[in-house]
């Protein structure tokens, strides 16, 4: 057992924190207000290597471990959770399936641009009738000669519109259920591939969430990811790893909200003393710290297992559900500590509270995480 | 040994820097305490007329080193000339103003003489064992170190505004010694191509008695005019916090704080400055601090002598009017 982060991890945290505080911090409130996607920040983040932390160096990635990735998303989200999820969705969802299941040609063509951040990636699984239950997938793919023809639509797609490549799932044989699903790589700009509704959200408002629409989209057969019928498995494995990203985002949100509350409680004077001198506040702060520390250990544990190529499904689900619930509890408590000010947009506490909620929903709701965890418990 | 205390007189185009007069004034007190002579050393071109002026501030002797190569300050030529004079006369101490020139010259001189140097000192006391003991701020004023030098000359650069300037007495006369500069060719490698002095009617930031400083609360570069108007009525320099400089509203040379200039004016007026620790480090030794900030919780109020919670865009122009009235 060793709970020490390496010198590199500490240096990465320092760097990402510096970047987040100086570059992302000042405009975070305004981007939230205007629902403005942080495209410039994405480019700057990519220059620093944040787009391809875990991807192999031969494809332009950093070749670092998953703990480095968790730290990256955590630190971005500590300041700007919208930027955190942009990076996480790009790396975990849009790029990682190609890294894990792509052919050398697909990696050369797509991963090499995704890992450097030259391109942005997105992932399309969810549909109006297929949320937590991916087997309801209605988007279809039909093989015709050297092509597949895709029809259907995907909703709630993070990085939609801005991403250059999309890994999507489509049903090829409904009679086979999940085993009829295949995964494909689709490039933005392919004829018939358009963007529908842009979601107006409660939180992470600066992140882009779009509908993807496919009308007779012809893609070369080389863009099939994995094999026909493997799509559901690819999606599930992708989500297992992706949960580490969202758990890290939730951890960052909790940390950011907690630091706000801590700072405020030391400055705000009521009844002749600072809030932090009241035991009621001290208990609140202690509870926040307990939960964050527990969440951090779970998140890094899951990241460690991912880096060691050990099974991550259960650990990632545990980390995600706990970190997401921690983010919500801590952010809500932070608003409470800030009182009336916490409810205003003058302080970022309310933004963290709004941003926290989604972490209990996307990439598998907390209920789904519990199903995943239970299935592992009962399998053993 | 009656080798005494030297004061390096910094002059530009025949005009003596205020800090040099501060050092002459304090040097007189220290020399009397030590029972040793006070010597002013002036380097430059056509500077002989300055001897009377430094004498009026209490110098017993004036060493004048004139040379064409000393017309404008260069590190090499000044070091060369001052080093040779110091070798010849072996003073016990040399006090230099902590100005751009002082900061450049003193370390060169100290290294050439193989002695220590106390930089940016804010206190000089006589010390029985080590001639002087110097108090100097470290961690940008968040702490102080008391420093002694193990050999002579004990050299220090002294922060401007540390000591008051005494009233000159024109009847005081000094012995004037004229030295020729022997400058090593190796010290003439640097060539000054250009000197650009930005004409300003306001005092230099580090020497100003009053500073009016604006921070994040200024909201934009166009608003500095209201600070400038106040500054001009009370003869102040204009300063800025790092937030304002980093936002690009005002040039870096106006920045007060840990990564900017360290100042200790008699009066420091902070408008729209929250009082980050880095800023306090650069102005905490000001004698009187005024804070104007709309945030009652701003840290600057914890150390301001006078505070106004309010909108600087209202308060500052009103204050300017008040001072105009008081004339």
């Amino acid at each position: 057992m060793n709970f020490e982060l390496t010198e590199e991890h500490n240096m990465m945290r320092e760097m990402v924190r510096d970047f987040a505080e100086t570059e992302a911090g000042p405009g975070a409130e305004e981007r939230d207000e205007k629902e403005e996607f942080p495209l410039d920040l994405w480019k700057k983040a990519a220059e620093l290597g944040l787009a391809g932390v875990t991807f192999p160096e031969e494809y332009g990635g950093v070749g670092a471990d998953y703990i480095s990735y968790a730290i990256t998303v955590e630190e971005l989200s500590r300041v700007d959770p919208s930027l955190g999820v942009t990076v996480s969705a790009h790396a975990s969802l849009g790029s990682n399936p190609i890294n894990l299941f792509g052919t050398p040609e697909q990696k050369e063509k797509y991963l090499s641009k995704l890992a450097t951040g030259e391109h942005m990636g997105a992932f399309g699984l969810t549909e109006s009738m297929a949320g937590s239950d991916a087997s309801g997938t209605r988007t279809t793919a039909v093989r015709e000669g050297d092509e597949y023809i895709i029809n259907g639509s995907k909703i709630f797609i993070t990085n939609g519109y801005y991403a250059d490549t999309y890994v999507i799932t489509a049903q090829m044989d409904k009679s086979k259920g999940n085993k009829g699903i295949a995964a494909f790589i689709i490039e933005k700009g392919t004829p018939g591939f358009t963007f529908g509704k842009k979601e107006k959200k409660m939180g992470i408002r600066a992140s882009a969430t779009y509908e993807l629409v496919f009308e007779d989209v012809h893609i070369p057969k080389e863009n099939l990811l994995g094999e026909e019928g493997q799509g559901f498995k690819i999606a599930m494995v992708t989500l297992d790893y992706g949960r580490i990203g969202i758990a890290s985002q939730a951890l960052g949100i909790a940390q950011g909200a907690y630091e706000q509350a801590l700072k405020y409680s030391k400055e705000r004077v009521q009844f002749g003393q600072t809030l932090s001198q009241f035991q009621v506040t001290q208990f609140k702060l202690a509870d926040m710290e307990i939960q964050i520390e527990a969440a951090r250990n779970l998140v890094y544990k899951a990241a460690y297992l991912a880096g060691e190529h050990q099974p991550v499904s259960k650990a990632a689900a545990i980390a995600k559900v706990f970190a997401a619930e921690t983010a919500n509890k801590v952010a809500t408590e932070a608003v409470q500590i800030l009182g009336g000010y916490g409810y205003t947009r003058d302080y970022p506490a309310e933004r963290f509270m709004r941003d926290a909620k989604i972490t209990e929903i996307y990439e598998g709701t907390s209920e789904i995480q519990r199903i995943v965890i239970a299935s592992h418990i009962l399998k053993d | 040994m009656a080798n005494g205390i030297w004061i390096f007189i910094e002059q530009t185009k025949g005009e003596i820097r205020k800090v040099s007069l501060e050092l002459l004034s304090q040097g007189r007190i220290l020399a009397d305490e030590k029972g040793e002579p006070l010597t002013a050393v002036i380097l430059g071109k056509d500077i002989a007329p300055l001897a009377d002026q430094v004498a009026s501030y209490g110098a017993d002797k004036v060493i004048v080193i004139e040379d064409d190569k000393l017309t404008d300050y260069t590190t090499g030529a000044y070091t060369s000339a001052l080093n040779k004079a110091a070798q010849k006369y072996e003073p016990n101490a040399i006090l230099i103003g902590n100005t751009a020139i002082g900061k450049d010259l003193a370390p060169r001189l100290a290294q050439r003489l193989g002695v220590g140097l106390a930089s940016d000192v804010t206190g000089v006391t006589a010390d029985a064992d080590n001639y002087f003991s110097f108090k100097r701020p470290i961690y940008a004023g968040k702490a102080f170190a008391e420093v002694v030098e193990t050999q002579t000359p004990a050299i220090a650069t002294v922060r401007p505004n540390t000591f008051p300037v005494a009233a000159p007495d024109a009847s005081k006369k000094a012995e004037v010694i004229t030295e020729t500069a022997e400058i090593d060719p190796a010290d003439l490698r640097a060539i000054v191509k250009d000197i650009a002095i930005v004409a300003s009617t306001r005092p230099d930031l580090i020497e100003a008695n009053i500073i009016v400083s604006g921070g994040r609360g200024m909201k934009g570069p166009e608003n500095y005019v209201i600070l400038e108007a106040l500054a001009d009525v009370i003869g102040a320099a204009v300063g800025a916090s790092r937030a304002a400089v980093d936002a690009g509203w005002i040039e870096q040379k106006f920045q007060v704080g840990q990564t900017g200039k360290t100042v200790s004016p008699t009066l420091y007026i902070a408008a729209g400055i929250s009082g980050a620790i880095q800023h306090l480090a650069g102005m905490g030794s000001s004698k009187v601090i005024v804070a104007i900030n709309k945030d009652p919780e701003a840290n600057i109020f914890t150390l301001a002598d006078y505070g106004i919670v309010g909108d600087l865009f209202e308060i500052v122009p009103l204050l300017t009017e008040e001072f105009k009235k008081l004339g």
Partner: protein
Amino acid sequence: MNIVVTLKQTFDTEAKIALTSSGSIDDNGVKQVINPYDEYAIEEALKLKEANEGSEVTLVSVGGAGTESAIRTALAMGADQAVLVSDPTLEAVDELVAADILAKAIAQIPYDIILSGRIAVDDGSAQVAVRLAEALGLPSVSSIQKLEITGQSAVATRDIDGGSETIEVPLPAVFTAQKGLNEPRLPGMKGIMAAKKKELKVLTLADLETSAAALNAGSKVTSYSLPTPRSAGKIISGEPAQQAAELAKLLREEAKVI
């Protein structure tokens, strides 16, 4: 072009300063960073390296083992290698000793340009780089805002009181970096990963053919103290016009500063 950058690890500028029970500066739990002004020097060195193919940037530092983390960060930014003089026999290092050690370390390696921060934010003495130039017999330009290299000469613009000065010096020479010279980059992820593979040579005083006894400090600290904390003064209330009038009056009549 061989570019040498001197580096010092210092307290973070946000650090609060406290004294230990024995009266020295308490570094317990204080976040340590690269001296902010040295970051400008590193950035300038990296820019020169990028503009001059075949250049190398070597970091040189004197300090304890803790200095290694500052050096690794600078290597992650893009410096090629580092030399750290670290010797347990070395105790109180004043500016004279620091400059002498750096000079001996730098004399062992090739150099065309030496860049330093104009001041270290801890002791704030702004001496070592200028002393280093003197110890190596080199010209120096302090507090530069701009640097241009042409062949074997450099033109630097430096801050002077009330303006700026442009100076030409032959190389090799020492330059000290002022804020405004450039905008230091962050080390990227790849740089961080590459940093651990770069050479960090740790030298003792014996490696420099000297010893603690042979290095004579010119000054020593006899005591440390903390400033007397200022306390909050008067808050002037009322309508803006009253506040302004009251403040003007207090500054004239009570504080007597105007």
